[in-house]
């Protein structure tokens, strides 16, 4: 309830049948978010006009869209699993570390041990899954807050990567490794197709298996779910492993299809796609298959950040821009559950009197 002059504004929860269409509200939120984030451009040296121009130069040029493909599959590979995890109430932010760990594992297999591509990708996925399982085990058996432990593991994984690229795996004295041999690389298009297929498979898993019921019931009403025999521990470990598996694979794919070598990272920026995956998951309303669309949107926005840099806008503006859009969409979708009631206080007082 808020009082503006003599008006009283109140949110009244709508009944289940009266709720607005969340998709329509979400799209409205998207438009408002876009406008708000462009207004944020006023804070940058390029101003609102420059920001708008930089955005338009990417979004308005379909020829540039394929450049967003590497970002798209990297973001989607973390977002889909996170959507599943968030549905179950498991608030992990570890996809970033799982992706980086996947890259490291894949580089070890492909670049150091000389294994075939498929083996490298499988190892990347397993490494991500193992990290996911670790966070879940800490949560389930030791009650360690998963948000904090997963974030801290991200930082630890980045330190491991930096040690490897600066030491044992360093090429030519630089903080990067040698390039992978060409026969152990792939194109971003193939990687994107693979990730898309897996995201669809995750959606099927959610829709048509008991896991989906378990995930939703644990997330919505854990006690009731447990009464009906759904295991909290098994569900959380399953979503953590699934989420880590896809994020780890995404890291492996990013290595094989895009970077083809490891370079040092800082903990602040890191690789970044695992963090963007968090935004993409919430932007998609934690609907697994919808993360494909939200990841594509964030990938295009991220691509625009390269245009920002040319226009003297700091790269981090892309982060703020994505955040404003997600906040706006999430707020609008929440509003679809409420009716905004505006009353004139004077009239109510008269009625009461």
């Amino acid at each position, binding site marked *: 309830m808020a009082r503006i002059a003599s008006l009283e504004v109140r949110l009244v929860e709508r009944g289940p049948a009266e709720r607005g269409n969340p998709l329509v509200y979400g799209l409205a939120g998207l438009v408002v978010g876009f406008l708000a984030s462009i207004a944020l451009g006023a804070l940058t040296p390029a101003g609102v006009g420059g920001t708008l121009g930089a955005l338009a130069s990417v979004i308005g040029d379909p020829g540039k869209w394929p450049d967003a493909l590497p970002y798209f599959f990297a973001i989607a590979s973390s977002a889909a699993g996170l959507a599943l995890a968030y549905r179950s109430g498991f608030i992990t932010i570890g996809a970033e570390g799982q992706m980086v760990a996947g890259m490291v594992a894949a580089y070890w297999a492909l670049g150091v041990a000389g294994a075939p591509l498929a083996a490298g990708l499988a190892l990347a996925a397993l490494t991500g899954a193992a990290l996911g399982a670790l966070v879940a085990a800490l949560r389930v058996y030791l009650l360690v807050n998963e948000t904090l432990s997963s974030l801290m593991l991200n930082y630890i994984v980045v330190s491991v990567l930096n040690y490897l690229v600066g030491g044992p795996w360093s090429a030519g004295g630089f903080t990067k490794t040698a390039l992978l041999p060409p026969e152990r690389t792939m194109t971003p298009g193939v990687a994107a197709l693979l990730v898309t297929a897996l995201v669809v498979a995750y959606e099927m898993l959610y829709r048509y298996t008991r896991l989906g019921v378990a995930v939703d019931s644990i997330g919505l009403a854990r006690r009731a779910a447990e009464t009906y025999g759904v295991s909290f521990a098994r569900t959380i470990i399953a979503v953590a492993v699934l989420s880590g598996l896809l994020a780890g694979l995404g890291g492996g794919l990013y290595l094989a299809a895009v970077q083809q070598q490891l370079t040092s990272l800082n903990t602040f920026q890191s690789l970044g796609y695992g963090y963007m995956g968090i935004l993409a998951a919430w932007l998609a309303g934690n609907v697994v298959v919808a993360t494909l669309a939200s990841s594509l949107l964030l990938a295009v926005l991220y691509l625009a950040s390269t245009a920002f840099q040319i226009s003297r806008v700091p790269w981090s503006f892309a*982060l*703020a821009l994505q955040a404003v859009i997600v906040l706006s969409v999430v707020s609008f979708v929440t509003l679809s559950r409420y009716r905004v009631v505006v009353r004139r206080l004077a009239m109510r007082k008269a009625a009461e009197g």
Partner: protein
Amino acid sequence: MAAVNMSALALQALVPAAVLGLAALGELLVERSGRINLGLEGMLHISYGAAAAAAVASGSAILGYLAALAAALLLAAVYYVTVEVLRVNQVVVGLVLVFLGSGLGVILGVMSGGAAGPSLPVGEARLAAALLLAAATLATYLVLQRSWIGYLVKSLGEDEKAARMLGVNPRVTRAAVLAAQSALVALAATLFLYAYTGGRWTAGRITGQGWLALGMVILGFWHPLGVAVASYLLGLLYSVQSLLPSLLPPGALYAVLADSAPYVAVIVAMAVASVVYRKTGHRPPASIWRA
């Protein structure tokens, strides 16, 4: 192995401890009122950037703090409007604020042009850190544990319906708590700038402090004194970290721990603490408790 000067370590720990402790005490207030602000990391980033921009432009340490405060209040206002008024999930809002805060923090920080603004010499920095941490801990303790205001805040965190019966206005209380959090976060960020980074802003330098501070609230068991002790212990770890070259042989373990010792320590400590809490029958504020 070189002899370790314990008193030097104890003094060196003061600045990192105060940065973590101030941020954590603010979050403690919010969590005691029944909300979690995961956006703490973003608040620190934006305050750090704003403080640097204002302090470098004006040459005034006070203006630097005020800018940091305004920036923190801005994010707190976003949190308040979305979580309290629009009733959006507090976890999403918190995570989004991390991105918003770190993104805007860089935009603001870049305005300082990498120039050095006001800073505190080592001795004064440690004294200021010790005084600020002690004063903030004492004030939080008195308000939260020894006053009726604290009683109302905590009642809100335990049972919102019962608190309403007592006459607590959840919105007003949480707005006040968020404002107090902003003041403490701004203090942490400006102390970090003036005492830790010599008045000079560097992108991402403050990374991780907000998350560690969230951990301090858990390790300090939602009590001001506990939070201060936990922060000081982690501050000590920061000062020991600089000794790692003389304590550990060079190699993988050393290289990784040199970067991430605080994170490893906090994960292990949280695991141990939660077992201890369970055995002793303690639990966090009811409205944020998840078994």
